Structure formats: C-alpha cells, structure tokens
C-alpha cells in the first residue's frame, strides 16, 4: 500500500541540495517517489468549474505553513508509514507531515 507524506513547513528551505539526514530517508527502498515543491508564492490555484474557471495567484489554502514536498512511500500499514514520517520529521526543526493513504496512483519518469 502506498502513502503520501505531505511535508509542511514554515521556513523557506531554499533550493540548495537536500540535507543529508533527509536524503538518507529519501534513499530508502520504501520511498517510491518524491517531489520538492517551489515555495507557495509560485502556486496558482484553479477554481470554479462548469465552463468557468478562475485562476488565483497563490496556494488554495493560505496558511503560515505551506506544502513543501510530497514523498510517496510503500508501507504495509499506517504504523509503518508513520514510522517513516517520524524519521523525516525528526530531521526538521518546524512544520509537520501529514500522512495520507493513496487511493490510486501513477508515476511516470522522473
């Protein structure tokens, strides 16, 4: 079963290389994919529908903490996924990681 670890943070980490402690977790075989996101100032949100959509500049949910990255892991159950999330969070000083089971997924390329 796959889980998405949604890493929220309040500090702009910059676009330098991934810290060693985080890289160690990302290199584990259970991590099947990951994405670092540009800061939320780069976000564009599409809303509306039924032929009329509206673009807004910025993230859908405006919060002090922003979604910084998504890590996809393979884990047998929630406890195993939470264990990976804990390892990751322990390398960070702020923010939080939301763990969500993936209903369906497709990943191409890299």
């Amino acid at each position: 079963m796959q889980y998405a670890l949604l890493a929220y943070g309040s500090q702009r980490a910059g676009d330098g290389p991934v810290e060693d402690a985080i890289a160690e977790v990302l290199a584990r075989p259970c991590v099947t994919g990951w994405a670092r996101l540009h800061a939320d100032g780069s976000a564009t949100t599409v809303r509306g529908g039924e032929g009329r959509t509206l673009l807004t500049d910025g993230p859908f949910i405006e919060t002090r903490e922003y979604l910084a990255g998504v890590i996809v892991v393979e884990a047998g159950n929630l406890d195993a996924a939470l264990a990976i999330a804990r390892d990751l969070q322990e390398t960070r000083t702020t923010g939080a990681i939301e763990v969500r089971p993936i209903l369906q997924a497709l990943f191409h390329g890299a």
Partner: protein
Amino acid sequence: MALDGVFREHWGRVLATLVGILGDIELAEDAAAEAFAIAAERWPRDGEPGNPAGWLISTARNRAIDHLRRQRVLAEKTRILARERAAEPEAAVHESATFPDERLELIFTCCHPALALEAQVALTLRTLGGLSTEEIALAFLVPAETMSKRLTRAKHKIRDARIPFAVPPAHQLPDRLAAVLAVVYLVFSHGWGDGRVDLAAEAIQLGRALAGLMPDEGEVLALLALMLLHDARRDARIRDGEIVLLDDQDRALWDDQQISEGRELLQQAITRGETGPYVVQAAIADLHLRQPRDWRQIAALYTTLSAQTGNPVVELNRAIAVAELDGPDAGLAILGGLELDHYRYFHSARAELLRRAGRADEARRAYQRALQLARTDAERRSLTDQLTRLSSG
C-alpha cells in the same frame, strides 16, 4: 434462554475473530449481527451449541462469504475465503472449531492514536463492549446520528489508511497500551462522574478482559484495581438520588468482596514492580477506603502522581489532601496556581475550603460558579444545599 446475556458475553470475542478473518470492521459487524439474529431464532428451539462462540463465528463467517459472493465486489477476498471454507466441512466447523481470541488486536486497532480520542472511545464501546450506537450516543449526550457518523468515519479510516490489526511491537507497547488504558478509564470516569453504573460496569468488564489477555502488565491490573475500588462504593454513593460524600457514606453498603479483589490486584501490580500512574491512583483509592484516612500518605501519593502526569486535576486533589493536613489556607494556596476555571469540581472544592476558612462571600461565589457548570440534577441539588447551609450558618 436470555440471549442478551449470551450476546454480551460473546460479542467482542466473536467480532474480533471476524475482523481478523475478514479484514474489515464494518463487514465483520454486519456478519456478527446476522449470526446473533440466527442464534436468537434457533438456540431456543434446538438448544445452545456446545461451543457458542465457535458456532457464532462460523455462522457469521459463512454469512459474510455469501454476502461477498452476492456483491462480487471483493472478488479476490471471496475466493480466498471460499477456498478456506471448502476445506472444512460445515458440520465440523460448527461443532469443534476453535478460533484465536483476537480481542487484543481489536482493542489496539480501536485505540490507535491516528483516531480522535472520542472516536477511540466510541469504537471500543461498540466493538468490544457490544453497545449499540444509540446507547453510546446516549452515554455521551450526542445525537445518535452524530455518533453513527463518528463510528462510520472511524471504521473507514481504519480501512482506508490501513491501521494495523495487531498488538504493537515491544518498543511501541508502553505508549500504545497507555492509550488503551486511557480509553477504558475515560469510559469509567464518565460513567462514575455522572452516576451511570452501567457505563462504569462496562469499563470494568473491558478492564477484566484486558487483565485476562495481558496478565503480566502491572498497569493493566492496577487500572482494574482502581476501577473496582471506586466502584465498590457505588451503592453508598447515591442515596434517594442525592450524592453522599465519602465520610457520610454507609460503609455497610460498600462491596467488601470487590474491595478485596481490588486490593489483591493492586498488590499483584506492585509485586510486578509497577509504579505507573494507575498503581499510584489505585493506592490512593485504597487509602480513601481506610479509616481514619492517612492524609499525609495520600498527599504524598498525589505529589508523585502530579509529577507523573502533569495534570492540574491531580493538583486539585493534592490541595484537598493538604487542606486536611495543614488547614484550608494551605489547600487554597495550591488551588490559586491552577487554571481549571472550566472544571466544576475545582469550584466546588474551592468553595468548600473557602467556607472552612470562614470566607463566606467568596465561598458563595465559588458554589454559584460550580452550580453553573454542574452536569447532573443530583450535583445541582447537592450544591444548592451547600449554598443554603452557607446562608443560614
């Protein structure tokens, strides 16, 4: 034959095994309900089977397979189950099947920290206790529909996020067991606080099941001891619908057998080297039953408990013990540092100490605040009574 009794006795055990087999609480619940309905119809006619739990589990499992087949939604699961079922002839299953007791797995699933505490409590009462959604809703004063949604959401989260159906590994066990014990104790204190003997009895039953399943865990034994020692006073605690304070209780109404059982369990927990918060609380409950009360030791144990839990309610209780030892002002000094304005017992305890200190006006205001926060009629009557006595004295 009283099926109610049979139902209560077997529900948790039957459901747990079914969750283990079917991998889904909702599915298991539906199947178990169907099997109990069949039993209600057949057992009075044909007699109770030699192994009622085994019969109920086999019947429920077979019903679940039929159900799955009809639905054809979980095709793969059905194939596996059908193969298993084909391997054992039905008659043999009904007569002699033995199934593993998986209630521990179930309670650790229901009390998983990924679920909100209120969902953990509701789910535990529903699955292990066999209470209906309506009964749980009534106990926690929420509409049945709200409780039904809460239960459904929790079951879906367990399924979708795949919360494990397992006893946690050793390194996680202390934290996870603490969560389970907290749920059981919350059910007990909720029932006890509101004078709901049925809920308190439910918590004791859960505590007994846990003690049977984990006989080497000192804190499990201590929690059961704590609940038994409190509950032993149930008949003396309410007289004609009014709350009777411990010192005014008729000791002949205390359940002596339950007190000795509680003390025995507490001793076993201490012998195992356990010094956790439930051991301390059970020891305090034990001291409260002895006359004259050893306030010095009670205050010392509250100091220990306060350091263990950091809970301001423990400090409130320590203040009451200290007031008995060193006078009301010493107790009031401790209360002054606590932020418990929302807590009804804080105000009633403070009012009592203020009264003893001769500060009647402040006592009156504190009683009035307690009255605003009171939850039951008996509480309101008791507080009104104190207020009247304050005015006349």
